[in-house]
């Protein structure tokens, strides 16, 4: 379970995350939705202890991330899939992660197999396609067999096959009783993947409801349009027209 309490992040230029409170329950996929720049990635970075909150807390299983012993066995995160050293192979990337948390070589082989990366394991990162980098990122997230998974914009730039793979994977992991948080700026994608939605705009919570409720409330209308109505007031930069 992930608990976010009154989480706030202010920069010199403004507020990225504004008094955000929500809970991500285990056993279902929770979609973390918002337009680009809504504060999704900043929130996720604070949950992972990468960014320091201005105020508020983010807890994983009741503990702040920094208090986790062997964190990869508690939380698996997919951030930017392209954040790899270009000349390091896929297997060595997983190896340093495994070593850092005292995980054995066997887990490396298992997650390579699980993500269909076994054949590409000896390839250097700069030769991997975006889809393969995404799979490697998922393999890294699964390495410690964690109870909590956080996937930040996992389908960005993926081909249809990759999109479906991520969708099914997220559902399967939630089906195993894990806590799964998937961020996206695409409502239509989340409607297919998530059982629950947390929607934010300009760092503020706009909605926290079951996906079904959102869909039936907007029955008949295009989901992406309904999402835009919900977040419309909070979009900072729009192409064309006055703000």
């Amino acid at each position, binding site marked *: 379970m992930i608990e976010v309490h009154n989480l706030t992040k202010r920069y010199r230029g403004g507020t990225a995350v504004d008094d955000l409170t929500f809970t991500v329950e285990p056993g279902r996929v929770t979609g973390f939705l918002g337009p680009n720049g809504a504060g999704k990635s900043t929130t996720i*970075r604070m949950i992972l202890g990468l960014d320091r909150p201005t105020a508020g807390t983010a807890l994983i299983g009741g503990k702040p991330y920094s208090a986790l012993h062997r964190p990869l066995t508690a939380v698996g995160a997919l951030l930017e899939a392209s954040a790899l*050293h270009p000349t390091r192979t896929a297997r060595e990337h997983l190896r340093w992660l495994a*070593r850092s948390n005292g995980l054995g070589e066997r887990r490396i082989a298992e997650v390579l197999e699980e993500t269909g990366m076994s054949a590409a394991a000896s390839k250097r990162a700069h030769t991997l396609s975006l889809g393969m980098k995404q799979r490697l990122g998922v393999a890294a997230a699964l390495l410690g067999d964690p109870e909590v998974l956080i996937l930040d914009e996992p389908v960005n730039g993926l081909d249809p096959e990759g999109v479906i793979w991520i969708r099914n994977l997220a559902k399967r992991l939630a089906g195993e009783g894990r806590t799964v948080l998937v961020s996206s700026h695409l409502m239509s994608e989340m409607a297919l993947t998530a059982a629950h939605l947390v929607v934010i705009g300009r760092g503020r919570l706009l909605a926290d409801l079951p996906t079904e409720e959102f869909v039936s409330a907007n029955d008949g209308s295009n989901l992406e349009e309904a999402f835009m109505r919900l977040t419309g007031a909070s979009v900072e930069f729009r192409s064309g027209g006055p703000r």
Partner: protein
Amino acid sequence: MSAFAQAASAEWVKIRSVRSTVVTLGLFAVVAVGLSWLIARGFSPGGPETDAVLPVFFALLTGQLVLVTFAVATVGSEFSTGTIRASLAAVPSRGRLYAAKMTAVGLTIAAAALVVEAAVFGLVRLVIGDGAAPLDEWWTIQALLGGWIHLTLLSVFTAAVAVMLRSTVLTLSILLPVLFLGSQGLGNIDTIRPVAQYLPDQVGMVIMHLTVPGDPRFGRDYGPWEGIAILVLWTAAALIGGWIAMRRRDA
């Protein structure tokens, strides 16, 4: 294995798994060994006895620029590629991650410097023959020890600066001209010498017999081990600065 040992082991995997490590450390060896052979061939005895180590240290100090590139690139690539986030997610204690990284980089450099210095010294002795620096004299041992410490600490210093600046290019752009200043002898210009002699790349010159205290033109106001002590202070200051930067900033 302790949490620190695990983190250090992960850092070692990072170092040995990228191509730039092989390239830079290999180039360091080639430059230092090749240059020492060329310089030693042109060595003519007749000067002070300690001149026999000049080819060793001229070669090592030129190779040092490549060694520094290794140190800076190893640290800087974490920031330029964005893997720093994965590193911090895996090792949330920033102090531990930083200590593990500096330990792994430092030990790698210490090992590379030791091997290459031994090779260079052996080659120079072979080429010079009679009049080569005797290994049973304290001044030779002291010079070799000092040179090894200098190469290692100066590289660790630059690695820590790279953590502060979070960039390979920026760090090298600032540090390489400064290090060139020393290797090209510009640090001996009268007007800047009183200050320049205390720069981190300069303080090892006395122990390596590239200059002596009291020399009218190239002299220093400190002795061999005092120079090394100043380098230790520089390195400690940079390590503390890197640690503060690691702790404070968002990833």
